[in-house]
Each structure stands twice: as structure tokens, then as C-alpha cells.
């Protein structure tokens, strides 16, 4: 294992609304090693995207981010001001957003948009060098005839191609960490496979780390080294890919895995999780998952569970963790 690149300690992001405080991210801690791929999984509203915005300080009012420490490359970035963060965003930590249709500026050519990154973070490049770097980046992400496409505008590209351009922009300043928020959710499966393979290859080639945020357990199981499962702003389970996918211990993780129809098996009925995610303004007492949990007992309704270690590097936040994948 390489050395730790990112260490998030006791991160809390609360949104103060008129109807009450929404604890979108509630006291979570995790770390990421160099060269590692971390998958953050959860359903909509579980706080997985807010986690990444919080790390980059992109949360806007009424959101308030608090944390004990966020160590990035040995430096605490949680205390940095906006100006210092500007130097980190894009250069050291780059982000790939979900919607390839809206995350590029429709008024600028893609050359302009890639060069903007170079101007900001790799100063002193000549015009020719910048152009060559653009071509090299576009070539790297698999855009055919990059020389001809430099002057194209985003609307001239398809969804998959735009996502490649966005990845090229993210890679422009050789970041150490890439945060990809649902990078393939808007894409078709065959294009998704292309983009995932591309990201997998580039992360290895550039020796960067990747945080992959997705709702799709199948994508995570193919890409990630470590997996975090979030529910209602809390981490309910974390561990290596095999721990979480094959030896899931939290009833919620097990429920999620059972909800996915298996291509390789014949099933009559899907084992679904009953009920739905509670409102973030009206969370149940005790364990947040208790009302939907089929193993729920008295203590679950009154007392919030704490993290338990069930294996090496495999922790579960549950009073009664399940054993060995069932």
C-alpha cells in the first residue's frame, strides 16, 4: 500500500434551512491511499456528492462544512481560504461531474476550455506548447483527429465525447486526485464501458487516485479498490471491494446487493428493501436504517450504532452486523 493521500476526519456538512437542519454529511471519516480507487456508493440523497463538494469547499450557503481535519498530501486543506483553494482545485484535485451536457461552456471552443486550465495552473507555457498539450490530452482520452476538433464547440460532440473532453480537462494539470461524481450515469452502457476503461487506464498511467461516486454497485465492484457505502449522510459500511461486495455485513448493503437483478441467475422475486429513505429533516431515532431493517431489534430504535470492525480494514456501523455476506 502506498502512502495516504487524502485523510478526511469527522467531516460534517449541515444545511440550515427554514424547516430545520439537514445533516447531509454527518460525521464521516475515511482515507485514500496514493494510486487507489475509492468508490462511494449510496442512493440519491445519501450525501455522497455533498461529501466531494465539501472536500473541495464547493458547498454554498446555507450549507456549513465543519471538519476536524482534511489532510491532503500532508497538508490540512480544511482551514484554507478561498484563494488558496483555487490553487488546489483543478491542479491537485480535479473533478469530473455527472452531466456532460451542462459542465462544458457552450460558448467556448474546447481548445479554449482546456487552455484555461493550463493558463491557471501551468503558467509560462508558450502558445505552441499549450496547443500541443491540448492535442496530446485529447489524444489520450481517445478523441479521433484531435487537431481538427480543437476548434469545435461542445454541441458538436456527443455525450460520450463530451465526457472525454471533461476528463481531458480534469487531467490537464496532472492532478493527484480525481473526484468523479457519477461520471457515466448519463451515458449508454457501451459508452459507459469505454469511459470506465479509459478512466481506469489513465488513473494507472498518471499514478493518480480516484474517488468514484456512483449509485451503481456494479460499476463500483468493477473499478474500486475500496468501497464506502453511505446512507442518510453516514457511512454504514466501508472496506475493500471484496469485503463490501462479497462479505457485506450491514443489512443495508446486503439489501442493496439483493435489489439488483443478477444477469447470471434465475430469480422469481427480487428481495427488495421495504419502505423508503427517511426524510433528512425527520430522521428516526437510533439507527437511521432501523425502520427498513428486517433484523431490527429494540436497541436499534433507541440507540445509534457505532463503527465495529468485522475484519481487517472492514468496518460496519450496525449493532448486529451480519456474517459473511448473508
Amino acid at each position, binding site marked *: 500500500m502506498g502512502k495516504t493521500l487524502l485523510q478526511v476526519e469527522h467531516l460534517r456538512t449541515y444545511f440550515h434551512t427554514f424547516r430545520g437542519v439537514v445533516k447531509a454529511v454527518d460525521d464521516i471519516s475515511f482515507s485514500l491511499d496514493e494510486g487507489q480507487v475509492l468508490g462511494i456508493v449510496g*442512493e*440519491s440523497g445519501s450525501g455522497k456528492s455533498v461529501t466531494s463538494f465539501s472536500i473541495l469547499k464547493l458547498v454554498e450557503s446555507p450549507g456549513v462544512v465543519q471538519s476536524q481535519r482534511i489532510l491532503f498530501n500532508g497538508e490540512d486543506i480544511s482551514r484554507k481560504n478561498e484563494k488558496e483553494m483555487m490553487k488546489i482545485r483543478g491542479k491537485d484535485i480535479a473533478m469530473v461531474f455527472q452531466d456532460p451536457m451542462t459542465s462544458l461552456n457552450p460558448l467556448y471552443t474546447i481548445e479554449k476550455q482546456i487552455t484555461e486550465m493550463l493558463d491557471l495552473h501551468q503558467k509560462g507555457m508558450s502558445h505552441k506548447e499549450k496547443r500541443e498539450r491540448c492535442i496530446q490530452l485529447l489524444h489520450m482520452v481517445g478523441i479521433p483527429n484531435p487537431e481538427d476538433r480543437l476548434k469545435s464547440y461542445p454541441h458538436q460532440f*456527443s455525450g*460520450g*465525447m463530451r465526457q472525454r473532453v471533461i476528463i481531458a480537462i480534469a487531467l490537464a494539470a496532472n492532478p493527484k486526485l480525481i473526484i468523479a461524481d457519477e461520471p457515466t450515469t448519463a451515458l*449508454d*452502457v*457501451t*459508452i*459507459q*464501458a*469505454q469511459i*470506465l*476503461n479509459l478512466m*481506469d487506464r489513465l488513473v494507472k498511467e498518471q499514478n493518480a487516485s480516484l474517488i468514484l461516486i456512483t*449509485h*451503481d*454497485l*456494479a*460499476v463500483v*465492484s*468493477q*473499478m474500486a479498490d475500496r468501497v464506502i457505502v453511505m446512507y442518510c449522510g453516514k457511512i454504514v459500511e466501508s472496506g475493500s*471491494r471484496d469485503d463490501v*461486495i462479497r462479505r457485506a455485513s450491514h443489512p443495508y448493503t446486503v*439489501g*442493496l*446487493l*439483493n*435489489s*439488483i*437483478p*443478477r*444477469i*447470471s*441467475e*434465475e*430469480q422469481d*422475486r*427480487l*428481495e*427488495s*428493501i*421495504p419502505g*423508503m*429513505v427517511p426524510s433528512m429533516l425527520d430522521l428516526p431515532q437510533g439507527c437511521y436504517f432501523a425502520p427498513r431493517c428486517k433484523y431490527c431489534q429494540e436497541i436499534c430504535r433507541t440507540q445509534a450504532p457505532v463503527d465495529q470492525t468485522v475484519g481487517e480494514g472492514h468496518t460496519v456501523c450496525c449493532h448486529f452486523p451480519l456474517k459473511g455476506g448473508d
Partner: protein
Amino acid sequence: MSRILQVEDLIQEFDLTQDLLDRIKFKHGRFSVEQQVVHAVNHVSFEIEEGEVFSLVGESGCGKSTTARTVIRLQEPKSGRILFEGQDITHRKLKDLRPIRRQMQMIFQDPYASLNPRQKVLDILTEPILFHKLAPSKAAAEEKAIYLLERVGLSAEQSNRYPHQFSGGQRQRIGIARALAVEPKFIIADEPVSALDVSIQAQILNILMDLKDEFGLSYLFIAHDLSVVKHISDRLGVMYLGTIVERAPKRQLFQKPLHPYTKALFSAAPTIDENKLSQSQELKGEIPSPIHLPSGCLFHDRCPLARPECAQTMPQLREVEPEHFVACHLAGAEGSAADSVKGGICL
């Protein structure tokens, strides 16, 4: 078993240049008239037996939703024939279509957009019942609506709420209840679970399967998610650029896909059962524009096995094995290259 729906040689096109001015193009120093037509559905044929779930799968833009919308006559077909329970409904007038519409209902993809935000749930459900005169009085219609609401897992108290007071999964339940309100025989479900979270997806799929048994329904199911489709269907058609490239019973299709596109699609779908990204079957390039369709086999410029003849002639659907239809020049020939490519998913 009788046949509930038969679609023969369906063609659907959209003219992007209906206005004469749009057709006039200025090119190479001279004016010319150009017509741009989107070939959304090209010669699609399939049939659905009573009590069967037939699914159309494919990527976005392959024409699966357009096929569904044309079958239920939300869009007028360009040519072809649509037979519902043996009756030709291809060119029926709207007035004569109404009794048929009661028999075929649709569940839409987006539960946020498909319910009227200004109607209470109870009104959403009673309106079609009263319109088709399926209840003697308003009270009887309401009673029926509440029964349906409870049947899809909502409570009677919730019937006086408006759609915005429900979550996506609950709204989709309302959409299902509305489709069932007029006692249909046949339901077209256009991506009914793709907008929902995984745990809610499983709940909705289970409801759809239970209702099918209870009300004796047949489904035309449209989806892009292979695992969902595999779970719910009896037979499937795989679509690419507006044509069905392969059509077979579920087991045969998943065990032994024969069309190179089906194989690529299957291998691209991520599964939690395998650890590694599959590198081998990755498709090159993207779907060509449906305005300028490729010559010959529509898939030939992305196909790893393409031969010269593929660019020349368009392959027709052939029955390669019993009930297993493939539109590929190479499939089915003894020891052909197409068969040697791995891509099957073991059952």
C-alpha cells in the same frame, strides 16, 4: 395462447425539414434542396402472446421508445401494420381507437412529468374510470381507485394529496395504478424503473410482476438496463438504429447471444458478479446518425467481424435456431466466426 399484439414491418420517420425554407441549403456556392429525415424505426416486426412479457432493449436513440409510442398510436406510423387482438389498428380514427386504448395502457419513464401536478391522486385515478364508464357512480369509481392505490402499496389516506407530496418511487406506483384503473389487458412500460434508486427499483419490479399475475396482463417492456430486462421478460428484442437485430426467448438470448452487437452490449454491462472490467469486447466508436443510415448492415462500421458483403446488403432477421431470430450475415453458419466470439452469460 392467443396473440395480443402483432407488429409487422413498422416504419417510423420524422422529417426535420417540414418547412420548405429549412430544406434550402447553401453549399459550395450554390443553393440546393435537401431533406433531412430521421429514420427512427426501420422495418420492425414482433409479436406478443397473451400473458407474455416482451422487452425491447437497446441504447438511447435506438428507437425502442418510438416503437412503443407508435404501437399505442401516440405517433402515426409511416407504414407497417399494428394488430391488437387480431384487429388492425394502424389507421383507425381516434374515435374508434378509444375502446382499444382502454385495453392498452402506458406507464411512462419520468414519474415527475407524467402526473398532473394540479390534480389530487384520487382524481388522477378516477378520471379514466369515469371517462371509460367503468363504474356506475363517482363513489364506486373512488372505491375502485382506493383499492388500486392500496394494491400498489400506498394507503387510502394518501389519496387526497398532490403528486409533489410523493417521492419518485411512490409516483411511479401512482402511474401504475392509473394504468390499471381502466382494466387493460396490455401494458406498455417505457423505462418504468430507470429514474428510481436501486432499492425502489426492486420494489416496483416486484409490483409489476405481481400485478401481471393478478390481472392477467401482458407487457411490452422498454429498458436499457440488461439486468432489469433479464429479470422481467419472457422474450426480448435487441434494437440497434431502429431495427431489431436479434429476437429470442430470454434464456436462449442470454445463454447464447448470436449477433455481434448483442454480445458487445452484454459484455459492456457491468455486473457485480465479475471483478474486472472486460476489455476484450469494447465497442469502437459511437452509434451512427439515424439521418444518414449506413449502407448494408447498420452495424457493419462498428462490428469487429464485418466482411465486405456486410457493407453491401442489409441482413434480414433469420430463424437460426427455433424461436431465435438474428439479423446478421455471419450468424448461424456452421463454425462461423460469429459463433466463436465469446459473449454468452452463463445461466
